[in-house]
């Protein structure tokens, strides 16, 4: 059920927050096979629900009384936060991430922390030290990563909203695989403070919902400047994004990213994207083909810059102030730390890291050029539907390449929204709308139109 509907029901006293929270924990139990949660907070959630039921007013926050889940990379005061890694198995943060504070101010009730690839390193959810998350549409398949548990929990109807982080597609890819709406905001639109860092110049703090309206409503809560995050924007105001939901798309210029429709894409997914473009055209959009000439280098660029930032960010975990020692890092974290150490090393720095910063600039320029001709871009979120558990675990490079259509947006820092666009062989498919930096409202405008068509 959507957040919007639950909010209405709570407002009309058709249901109490305690009932919603109780139902949520029943659903978690029913869906335990998904392995979507690492930590549950039943006692705290019920207390918060009772508080809401006693004290709610018409002016209660936008998420008041509504159960939500948080990716386990979000620091939660007095609630264990593992980032999916045994390094942090016993870590209890002494403070809330800024986004968690905002969600609490809006009245949201946290029911638990969701499973994820350890340190957010992964495209499938299989790199979690707590076991893989399963896809609610087919338990033999992956939910997508790295925000695997959040996507699965929303897709299974356990919670109407769950948070995620998107460093190279970690919200959009699982959203596409699980058939839910996934938002990657502009880099700097939502504070990163208190989120376990992966690639600090890439990390974008997003969320999963069942509808585009809900996605807009949640961003209106989470977006904004934060004193604790100097990269969060203080100059761009935060509108009520829901005002753009359902707005006419007539006259909007939509660029179809042709680079994503060449080899490598499942032909049936390509058809879904082309159908979406056609429907948008029927709705009055001007659809044109666009090319991002350097996008073919995006994956190589990403897998230089992000491991470099990973090796630096994970250097802090030494078991001295908190967490276990470095011997507790699992395979993927070791691979990324070592790759990053390699590319940052003397003698390699110019050929890899410096070169990649230049290529990042070229990719960003590609997007800027495309946005001179178009208001938004359209493309597939993933070249395939959810793959089988274990299918790519032995080949890390093949796993990395799952992010081929999602990581370029993180290099450019632009926002993107993955919206369900039907199914292929009974598995969900997502299409992706991309907007210029700080123009998330366009995502919701076009996204709500796409949602209506499917």
């Amino acid at each position, binding site marked *: 059920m959507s957040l919007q509907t639950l909010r209405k029901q709570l407002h009309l006293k058709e249901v109490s927050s305690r009932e919603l929270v109780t139902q949520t924990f029943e659903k978690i139990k029913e869906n335990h096979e998904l392995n979507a949660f690492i930590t549950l907070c039943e006692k705290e959630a019920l207390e918060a629900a009772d508080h809401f039921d006693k004290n709610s007013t018409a002016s209660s926050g936008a998420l008041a009384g509504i159960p939500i889940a948080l990716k386990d990379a979000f620091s939660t005061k007095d609630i264990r936060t593992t980032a999916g890694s045994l390094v942090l198995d016993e870590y209890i943060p002494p403070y809330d991430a800024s986004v968690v504070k905002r969600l609490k101010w809006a009245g949201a009730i946290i029911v638990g922390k969701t499973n994820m690839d350890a340190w957010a390193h992964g495209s499938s959810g299989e790199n979690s030290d707590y076991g893989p998350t399963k896809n609610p549409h087919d338990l033999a398949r992956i939910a997508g990563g790295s925000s695997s548990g959040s996507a699965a929990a929303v897709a299974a109807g356990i919670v109407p909203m769950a948070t995620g982080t998107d460093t190279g597609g970690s919200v959009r890819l699982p959203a596409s695989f699980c058939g839910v709406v996934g938002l990657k905001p502009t880099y700097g639109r939502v504070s990163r403070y208190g989120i376990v860092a992966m690639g600090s110049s890439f990390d974008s703090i997003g969320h999963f919902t069942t509808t585009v309206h809900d996605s807009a409503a949640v961003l209106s809560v989470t977006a904004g400047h934060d004193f604790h995050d100097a990269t969060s*924007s203080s100059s761009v105001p935060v509108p009520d994004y829901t005002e753009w939901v359902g707005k006419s798309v007539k006259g909007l210029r939509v660029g179809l990213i042709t680079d994503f429709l060449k080899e490598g894409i499942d032909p049936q997914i390509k058809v879904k994207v082309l159908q979406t473009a056609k429907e948008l055209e029927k709705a009055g959009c001007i659809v044109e083909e666009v090319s991002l000439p*350097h996008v073919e280098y995006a994956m190589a660029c990403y897998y230089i810059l992000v491991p470099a930032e990973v090796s630096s960010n994970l250097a802090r975990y030494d078991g*001295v102030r908190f967490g276990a020692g470095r011997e507790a890092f699992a395979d993927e974290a070791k691979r990324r730390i070592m790759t990053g*150490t390699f590319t940052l090393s003397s003698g390699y720095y110019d050929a890899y890291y410096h070169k990649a910063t230049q290529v990042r600039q070229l990719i960003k320029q590609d997007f800027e050029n495309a946005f001179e001709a178009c208001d938004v871009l359209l493309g597939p979120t993933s070249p395939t539907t959810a793959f089988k558990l274990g299918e790519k675990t032995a080949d890390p490079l093949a796993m990395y390449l799952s992010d081929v259509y999602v990581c370029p947006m993180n290099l450019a820092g632009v926002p993107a929204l993955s919206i369900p666009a039907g199914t292929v062989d009974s598995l969900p498919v997502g299409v992706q709308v991309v907007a210029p930096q700080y123009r998330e409202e366009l995502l919701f405008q076009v996204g709500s139109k796409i949602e209506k068509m499917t």
Partner: protein
Amino acid sequence: MVADVLKKENWSFRIKTSACLYATIGSMSTVDAETIDHLAKLSRLTIQTEEKNTLVTQLSDIITYIGRLSELRDSIIPVHETINGLQDVTRSDEPRDSLSPDLALQNVPTSRIRDHKIVVPGVFNSPTDL
């Protein structure tokens, strides 16, 4: 293809060790067991012997793949500090609340706490003491 490009350019790469020594560790696309040992040392990671062969193959694949950026010849491209255009962001130098000592010690292993302080590995000790 990447390997051919590298061969043509005859690039030689060196890696800086923690002791500020330089050691040649081969071409861009070559990762061997020695490279893994060296990277593990720099990264403060312990790699088991049985992991090494797999890591040689996997890192070779990854490094060959990312090496394809050398195909791009644009050499003078201005690089901005931040992707969203923010520059020189500073905050005013005013005191503000921070974690209390008790909270800061909350997650420290008890074996490392002495007199309400954290015992850290000595800077000049051997890296194996870390």
